[in-house]
């Protein structure tokens, strides 16, 4: 670094102080308070008692029967499992569709490429809530999906395929919401790809599937991994799709947290579920860092 334009240490820290202060006070401290509250006792009239207790975490796995004994209760584990499965399935669908689409885009002339990328970003920047709500109209009773089936007589005049308020509906919502987040990083890594390698493989009579698997996929791995994390992490904590498309009975971690604060008013339990969600997210991110390091090492000669 040259000495003319480089900042000295004092100025540097002065410039970073506002960001540290705002994120530290209004993000890091609230997260610490959340962890603290998850270890407190619930005040049934709202708020918490400041007494140490692991009740909230116990409640996630057990419930008390009439005699006051702890009995294993899988209800919340099922919610956790549903969240992980739905987020995992959405990630898988997004990779399966996203990779070929990104490959298609990267092979277009630059002008077309730019337009195609722009078309992907538009839905991504539009309101999440509005996009999920559009699926309510499509999947709902007598909605866009039902109508042609009714017209063809495949359904009773007031019949419905019953797609809304199912796990499938949540999966559609999650896939739709996060698909752009898969295509864009894969596209970014494919764009940097040295196409001479693909040509070389082709010149050496490699079959195109072999070329994709052995040449393109390893080089695009960082994009695929980044896309997977960008889809999986927010899908795991999503609240909008489960709430609007899953109905009241199909809770996920995200909607369970919201329910505890908005309706049940059990702060310690809500905080505990939020902490569990956060732990899962951090674990996925740690895995991401390990995988990208591995991919980077594999990419070296």
């Amino acid at each position: 670094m040259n000495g003319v334009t480089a900042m000295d240490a004092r100025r540097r820290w002065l410039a970073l102080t506002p960001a540290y202060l705002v994120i530290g006070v209004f993000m890091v401290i609230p997260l610490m308070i959340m962890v603290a509250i998850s270890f407190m006792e619930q005040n049934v009239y709202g708020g918490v008692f400041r007494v140490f207790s692991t009740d909230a975490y116990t409640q996630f796995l057990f419930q008390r029967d009439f005699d006051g004994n702890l009995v294993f209760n899988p209800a919340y584990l099922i919610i956790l499992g549903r969240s992980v499965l739905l987020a995992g399935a959405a990630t898988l669908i997004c990779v399966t569709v996203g990779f070929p689409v990104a490959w298609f885009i990267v092979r277009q002339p630059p002008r077309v490429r730019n337009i195609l990328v722009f078309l992907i970003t538009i839905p991504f920047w539009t309101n999440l809530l509005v996009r999920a709500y559009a699926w309510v109209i499509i999947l709902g009773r007598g909605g866009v999906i039902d109508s042609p089936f009714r017209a063809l007589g495949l359904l009773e005049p007031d019949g419905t395929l019953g797609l809304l308020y199912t796990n499938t509906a949540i999966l559609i919502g999650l896939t739709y919401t996060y698909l752009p987040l898969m295509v864009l990083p894969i596209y970014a890594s494919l764009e940097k790809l040295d196409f001479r390698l693909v040509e070389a493989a082709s010149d050496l009579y490699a079959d195109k599937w072999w070329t994709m698997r052995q040449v393109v996929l390893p080089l695009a791995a960082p994009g695929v991994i980044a896309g997977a994390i960008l889809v999986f992490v927010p899908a795991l904590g999503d609240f909008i799709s489960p709430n609007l498309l899953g109905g009241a009975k199909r809770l996920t971690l995200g909607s369970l947290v919201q329910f505890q604060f908005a309706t049940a008013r059990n702060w310690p339990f809500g905080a505990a579920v939020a902490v569990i969600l956060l732990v899962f997210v951090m674990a996925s991110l740690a895995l991401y860092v390990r995988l990208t390091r591995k991919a980077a090492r594999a990419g070296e000669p």
Partner: protein
Amino acid sequence: MSARTRTRAEARSGAGRIAHFSWLGPLALVFYAFLYFPIVVLIAYSFNDSRFAMIWQGFSLKWYATVLENGDIQTASLNSLVVATTATAISVSIATVAALALARGGAFRGKTLSMGLIALPIVVPEIVTAVATLMFFSAIGLSLGLGNLIIAHTVFCIPFAFMPIRARLQGMDETLEQAAADLYASRWEAFRLVTLPLLAPGIFAGAVLAFVISLDDFIISLMISDAGTTTLPVYIFSMIRRGVTPEVNAVSTILFSVSLILVSIYWMASRRKKDEA
């Protein structure tokens, strides 16, 4: 290996268009149709004459009239605008100085940690941030009305404002600033007359991004806002809960149009940035 048994003719046809799959085009078409189908349905049904959102009865603009007359929507829109404008102004200022420190501050201890801290609002799931902020405000007894919302929005706008500004700084030629310094410009003059004008497109892109993110935010606003500080997405949510009507479609279409315009502006600003570089 099967590749070795292929004829030369097959290989030559493959070499012209390397790794070409005939189903890629149709798949991309389905992909884009899937992406835009809900948006088209949403907009189309906002012009539906029927009171029931799902039955088509004819073209009408009456739901837009209803939206424009709805005082609650006006209040909610105003709240959204006030929050988005203020949060954008504050977060862009914070992000600009932070980006300058990180891009021009050389290598220093704690640089990775600083980047991580700035990215934190993106990494933590929104619902977790929402309830953590709710408990924090309640614990310290802070109730500033819209002020609470502005604080919460400023936090998650910082990383979004930060990214394009830092990207712009990294692409900038430092020799211009050095030349200004050689020509006896003071540090402040060099910054104001050389760095800032060059950085402006990045700051503008960051501001648009932060504004859209704030305007569209739903989950955090839902947990933080109360009866008097409802934002537009939160109000739309309460409308959806009361029942699916074309009025929701009309207000959603308006919100979509605003986002579309802003994203187009952002796109053009970032395109110009690339062209100059």
